[in-house]
C-alpha cells in the first residue's frame, strides 16, 4: 500500500520533505524542552540524518534536495545547536570525520591502496597549528608566544600543503610495495609518527610528548566576543557555532572537489589503476604520479581538518592519533561503502552517532532505570551486580554492530554504483 502511495516522483518529493520536516520538529521539541534522555535524543538525531539521506535519494526533485539539505544544515542545526551544544558537537564531529573518510576513500576506494596509517596526516595538521598557535615553542625560541588567532586562516592552507607534502614523501618510496605489504608499511608509518609525537619532548621539547600541547589559540575568539556583545549569546556557544560552520564548509568543499575529480580523466585513471594496474600502465597512465596525487590530496584534506581539530579542542596529545583512530576511519569508509562518496559520509555519520550518542544514550537510559528501581522480569535493576553496568558494554556493542553490519551488508550501506574489485588473486569463492 505504501508502495502505491509513494510511487510517483511528486509524491516521493512530498514524502521526503515531509520526513525531514517531521524529523526537524521532533528534534526541536526535544532540544527546546530540555530533555536529557540521551537515548531518545540520539534516536532523533539519527532520524534527522537518515531523513536527509531519504531526501537525497535519486527520485526526489533537485530543488527539494537542495532546499532540505541547506535548510537543515545551515538553518535548523545551528539554531538548535546554540541552545544544545551537544547537538552542535556531534554535527561538527560528523563533518570532521566525514571529511577524513572522504580523504581515505580517495586512496582506498578510488585507487585501491589500503592505508592503515591515515590518521598520521591528520596529526601532522593538528600539530602544525598546535605548535605554531601556542606558546609551545617558547622553550626553544625564547619569547615566542605563538601566532595570534587570526593567522589560523594562513596556517590552514600551509598545513594542508605540509600534510600533502608528507603524503608525497611517504608515497614516493612506499608505493613500490603492493597490497597487504603496503597496508603494513602505512601502519608502520602511522606508528612512527605517533611514537615521534609521543617522544619529541626530549632532547628538545617540540611536541610536549605525552603531556600534549595545552592552550592552543582560538581563531574565532575575538569575532565571537564582538558578536556576543551585540547579540547577547554567550561567547563559547558562538565559537562552537563557528567551528561547526567551518568544518561543514570544508566538508562540502572537499566533497565537491572529490566528486569533480572522480569524474575527470584523473578519476578514470585511478579507477583503471584500481581495476588492473598493468593494463593501466600499458595504456600510458603515469601510475606512480597518479597514486601520489591521490595520496597527497587525501593527506592534505585531512591535514586541514587536523588544524581545525587542534583549534577546536584547544588541547591535543598523541592519544588522539593512535592506530585505533586510523582503523575507526577505515571502518567508516568500509561501512558506508568503499568508493562511494555519499556512502562514506553516511558511514562517518553512523559511526560518530553510534559512538558518542546511541551507545552512551543506551547505557545512561539503562543506568537511569537502575537508579529508579524499576524491575524487569521479576528482578529489580537495582540488584544487578556492578559487572553488568551497561556503560561497560559500549565497545562490545560497537564490535557486535560492526560485525553484524558487515555480514548483512558487506558492500557497505550505500555501495558505489560501479562494482569495486580490489584485486585478490587467491580468493576462495
Amino acid at each position: 500500500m505504501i508502495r502505491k502511495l509513494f510511487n510517483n516522483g511528486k509524491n516521493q518529493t512530498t514524502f521526503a520533505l515531509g520526513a525531514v520536516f517531521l524529523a526537524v520538529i521532533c528534534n526541536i521539541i526535544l532540544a527546546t524542552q530540555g530533555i536529557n534522555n540521551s537515548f531518545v535524543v540520539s534516536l532523533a538525531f539519527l532520524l534527522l540524518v537518515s531523513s536527509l539521506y531519504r531526501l537525497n535519494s535519486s527520485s526526489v526533485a533537485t530543488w527539494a534536495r537542495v532546499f532540505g539539505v541547506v535548510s537543515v544544515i545551515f538553518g535548523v542545526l545551528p539554531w538548535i545547536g546554540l541552545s544544545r551544544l551537544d547537538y552542535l558537537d556531534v554535527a561538527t564531529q560528523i563533518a570532521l570525520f566525514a571529511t577524513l573518510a572522504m580523504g581515505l576513500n580517495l586512496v582506498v576506494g578510488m585507487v585501491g591502496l589500503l592505508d592503515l596509517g591515515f590518521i598520521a596526516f591528520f596529526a601532522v595538521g593538528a600539530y602544525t597549528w598546535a605548535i605554531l598557535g601556542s606558546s609551545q615553542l617558547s622553550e626553544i625560541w625564547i619569547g615566542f608566544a605563538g601566532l595570534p588567532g587570526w593567522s589560523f586562516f594562513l596556517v590552514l592552507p600551509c598545513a594542508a600543503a605540509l600534510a600533502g607534502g608528507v603524503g608525497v614523501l611517504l608515497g614516493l618510496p612506499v608505493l613500490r610495495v603492493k597490497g597487504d605489504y603496503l597496508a603494513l608499511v602505512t601502519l608502520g608509518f602511522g606508528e612512527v609518527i605517533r611514537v615521534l609525537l609521543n617522544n619529541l619532548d626530549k632532547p628538545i621539547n617540540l611536541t610536549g610528548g605525552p603531556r600534549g600541547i595545552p592552550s592552543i589559540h582560538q581563531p574565532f575568539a575575538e569575532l565571537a566576543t564582538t558578536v556576543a556583545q551585540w547579540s547577547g549569546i554567550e561567547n563559547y556557544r558562538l565559537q562552537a557555532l563557528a567551528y561547526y560552520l567551518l568544518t561543514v564548509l570544508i566538508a562540502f568543499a572537499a566533497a565537491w572537489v572529490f566528486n569533480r575529480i572522480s569524474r575527470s580523466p584523473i578519476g578514470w585513471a585511478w579507477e583503471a589503476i584500481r581495476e588492473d594496474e598493468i593494463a593501466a600502465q600499458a595504456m600510458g597512465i603515469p601510475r606512480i604520479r597518479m597514486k601520489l596525487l591521490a595520496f597527497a590530496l587525501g593527506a592534505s584534506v585531512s591535514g586541514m581538518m587536523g588544524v581545525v581539530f587542534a583549534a577546536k579542542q584547544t588541547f591535543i596529545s598523541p592519544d588522539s592519533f593512535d592506530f585505533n583512530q586510523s582503523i575507526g576511519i577505515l571502518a567508516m569508509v568500509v561501512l558506508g561503502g568503499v568508493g562511494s562518496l555519499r556512502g562514506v559520509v553516511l558511514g562517518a555519520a553512523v559511526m560518530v552517532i553510534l559512538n558518542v550518542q546511541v551507545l552512551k544514550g543506551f547505557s545512561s537510559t539503562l543506568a537511569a532505570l537502575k537508579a529508579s528501581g524499576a524491575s524487569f522480569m521479576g528482578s529489580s535493576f537495582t540488584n544487578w551486580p556492578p559487572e553488568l553496568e551497561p556503560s561497560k558494554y559500549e565497545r562490545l556493542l560497537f564490535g557486535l554492530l560492526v560485525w553484524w553490519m558487515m555480514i548483512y551488508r558487506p558492500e557497505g550501506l550505500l555501495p558505489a554504483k560501479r562494482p569495486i574489485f580490489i584485486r585478490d588473486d587467491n580468493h576462495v569463492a
Partner: protein
Amino acid sequence: MRLKASFIAVMFGVLSTTAATIALSAPQVLKIVTHSPLSGAQSTTGETIKFGTQLAVDDFGKILEPYNAKLVLQAEDDQSNPTVGVANANRLIGDASVIGIIGHFNSGVAMATTEVYAKANLVMISPANTNPKITERASTSKIANRVCGRDDVQGPAAQSFMSSHLKAKKIYVINDKTAYGSGLAQEFEKASRKAGVQVLLSTGVDEKETDFSSILNRAVIEKPDVIFFGGIYSQGGLLLKQMRQKHIESVLLGGDGLDSAELQTIAGAANIRNVYFTSVAMPLNQLPKAKSFIETYKTKFKKSPDGFAVASYDAAHALILATAESLKAKKGQAVDRADIAANVRKVNFEGLTGTIAFDNKGDIKAARYVVIEAGATPAQNKTAAVITK
C-alpha cells in the same frame, strides 16, 4: 519500500517517546557525574573512581534532601580518549541537572575536557590528575580542582625520601610515556640531579610494553640503588616481578600510580621487598575513619578499595557540601554552577584522607606527603616516612 515503512515506524517511536518524556514531571534530580575510563585497559581504575563516588552519594546524598533535591550518580566512560571525553563533556554541560564532575583518570583527557567544562562553569574535582598544568591554566582556573597531589611536589618529595632514608647514590629513572608517568619522572629526575644523585639511565617505555629486559639486563651489571618508575601499578608490578626474577634487589620507588591492591597481585607477594611509593593519603588500614568505608566497599563491590576510590569519595563529598551551600543560599532554586564552583574552594572538612580544603588554584592544601612501603598484602602497607613540604 520496506525501508520507508520502518522509517515511519521509527519516527512514530521517537515522537511517542518524546511525548511520554515530556509528560513525566519528576522532582528535582541532581547528578554527580564520574568521568573515567570504564572500558578498555584502564577500566579497573576508572571503575574505582565510580565506586568511590557511588559510596559518597549513598552516604552524603541526604545532605541535599532538605533542599528538595535527589542526588544520583551518572557514570560516563571517557575511554581514556580525549576526543571521546570532549564529546561527552559537550553533552554534560548541556544537562542542567549536572552539578559537577568527579574525574578524570588520565591527565591528557582532563586537559581537554576542562576547557569545555570551563565554558559552562561546571566544576571538576579530580581524584587522580597530578599534571601541574591542570590547575595552572587561566582558562580553567575557576573550575579545575584536585584532591590528589601534583607531580612537581610529589617528584621532589620522593627524591627527598630517597636521599634521606634510602641514601641512594646511583639510580635509574623509567617512565611509561604517559602524561602522568613522564611528568612525574621528569620532576623526580630534576630534583635528583639537583641533589647530586647520579642518574645512570633515564628512559621511557611504551605504556603497553610488557618486556623490561632491555633495561633490566643493564641493571644486572650496573646495580643501581633505586629504580624509580613513573607509571601505573599494572606496569610497575610487572617491572618489579621481572626485576626480582633477574635477581635485581634494587629498591623500586614510584608515585601514587603504584597505589593499588593489584600491585601485589601482579608482582606476587614474594617479590614485594623494598617497594615504596608516595601518596597524599596514609595507607588505608591506618586511617581510622576509613574502616567502615572499606567494609561497605567490599560488601558492595566485592573488591578492595584503592587510593583512587578513597580520593573519589572525598572529592564527591566536597562537591556535595559545596552544592548544599549553594542551594542553601539560593533557597532551592535552579542550580548555579558558578556558585558551586566558588563554594568548592571554600569547603573545609575532615575527609577520609585528612583535611580537605583547596587553595585558590584548586590544589589540595595538604601540607604533607606520605611515603608508603608496600607489604606482602595491601593490608600490610605501612607508612615509611612523612615528608612535609
